[in-house]
């Protein structure tokens, strides 16, 4: 048991990987709760792609990847909050075009460097095992701001999610509230850059909260369960990836393993809920 659960984390790089996985798991779970309640999973997915040109330009100029991602993310968050006011435009199509254009721009920038495939993959999928102390500091700082935003605007964001008309009627500006959430999501995406990369962070934002929504009845409990699921998958995913690579000779990348654990958790919970519901129906019918 000790070999299975404790021994891996005696290594320095595994400790750092554990810390950052726990942080981004909780962050994704908490901010993701608002994403699911507002039903903006596609927007979250778009953001994970639109930060990419910022990362790519920072990479080429040898600047801070976090800064590049943050700038590109904030630009798209503002752009989207403004565009969603235009009634004639289909949000879905607009996001898809924004996603492919920004992402394409990132690839164009990176492709100017001759051997780009390896770099591209690191940028897209992160390297949780090479996380440094500075990365953890950056993640904590960015994530802290994101948590602060949703904590301050919690009541207003919840109202807007459940009763958009009521929220507007009470005088809250929808664009401002949307912008708050957009920025919080951007910060989480940027904070998770090193741990899971830009492409897989969508799983952290969507899957834990979707799982939590199935088994909870209030926003508060959904937040707690969602954060717990995110952290749980981080630890279990890291352990599976470690043991598979070291003990069984199958090199499983840590980031995708974490996401696969998340998906498996979702599938188990959704099946469980369906089974419980069916048996309850049967009991009611019999009684």
């Amino acid at each position, binding site marked *: 048991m000790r070999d299975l659960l404790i021994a891996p984390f005696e290594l320095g790089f595994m400790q750092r990987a554990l810390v950052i996985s726990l942080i981004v798991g909780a962050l994704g779970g908490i901010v993701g709760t608002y994403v*699911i309640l507002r039903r903006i999973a596609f927007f979250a997915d778009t953001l994970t792609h639109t930060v990419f040109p910022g990362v790519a330009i920072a990479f080429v100029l040898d600047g801070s990847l976090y800064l590049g991602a943050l700038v590109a993310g904030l630009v798209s968050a503002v752009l989207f909050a403004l565009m969603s006011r235009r009634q004639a435009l289909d949000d879905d*199509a607009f996001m898809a075009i924004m996603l492919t254009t920004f992402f394409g721009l990132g690839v164009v920038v990176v492709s100017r460097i001759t051997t780009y495939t390896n770099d591209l993959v690191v940028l897209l999928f992160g390297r949780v095992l090479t996380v440094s102390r500075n990365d953890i500091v950056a993640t904590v700082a960015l994530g802290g701001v994101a948590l602060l935003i949703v904590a301050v605007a919690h009541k207003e964001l919840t109202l807007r999610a459940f009763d958009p008309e009521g929220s507007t009627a009470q005088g809250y500006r929808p664009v401002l509230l949307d912008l708050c959430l957009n920025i919080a999501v951007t910060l989480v995406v940027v904070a998770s850059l090193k741990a899971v990369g830009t492409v*897989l962070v969508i799983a952290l934002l969507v899957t834990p909260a979707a799982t939590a929504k199935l088994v909870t009845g209030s926003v508060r409990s959904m937040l707690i369960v969602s954060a717990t699921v995110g952290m749980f998958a981080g630890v279990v995913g890291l352990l599976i990836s470690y043991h598979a690579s070291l003990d069984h000779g199958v090199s499983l990348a840590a980031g995708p393993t974490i996401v*696969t654990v998340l998906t498996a958790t979702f599938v188990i919970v959704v099946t469980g809920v369906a089974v419980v519901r069916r048996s309850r129906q049967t009991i009611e019918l019999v009684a």
Partner: protein
Amino acid sequence: MVALTSVIASIIDSFGAIWDSDILRRALLEAAVVGAIGGVIGIHISLRKLSFTTMALTHATFPGVVLAAILGVNLLAGSAVFGLLLVLALAVLGRVRELDTSTTTGVLLAGGFALGVLLLSAQDGFAKDLTSFLVGSILTTTNSELVATVVGGGVIAVVLAVFSKELLYSAFDPVGAQAQGFSLGGLDLMVLLALEATLVLTIPSVGTLLSVALLVGPATIARLWTDQIRLARYIAPVIGAVFAMAGIVISHAADTAAGATIAVTIGVGFAVSLGITSTPVRKLLGQSHRDPRPVRIFTNR
């Protein structure tokens, strides 16, 4: 005036140079064909608000491609099977009360993609394969791939044309269509299958990113310019083909990744169209339409 003619001359020159090269000519033709098919099916994607589903389909078919490569079976078959699994999973999860369509789509997209990356990470040549899946390798299009795209795309276009009246009717007036005895689920399924068939054809040569760009972009641009679907149906394939070829020419001149350049070209075209059609010009091109409904079999209310 002189500057303009010299610019046009240089574009014609570079077009000629591309046409002379076997590889580039094939890439140009493939781009034009995929762009045109994208425009044809894109109208239905746009009317039924299936952009996110398209995105999810491209990601969820990824593990199928990887598995097929590992097992040594046909890649198209692998991605087709996983595409069907996704459609099935969306339909099943649509019945869970707590989950709305965008949530289930997001979960399946992320989960499917991660599974593909996970399978791939256990293989050698991880980085290279993954990049070509994402951004495609349109420059390595073979003659047989080109033929497959033309034939497959032709079949899809014919099927959509034959049922176009029913598909458009049910998109705009689902209640009326149902009252007249059309099966809404059947028509939705037809669009989804056509969508999946298109993606299965295009992803190997142009990648996921460009597939989404070509399926969503041209139709959305066309619908910015006109509210009449009749017109948009013919404009969209033309826009798709022209922008795709323009992207190839630009990427050749600027020495950038071809697929990504096409995606950016479409994005710029969209931004410019959005700017122009926000002005009174739009009013010359037709009146406003009613909002179409989203796809029905996935929704739970």
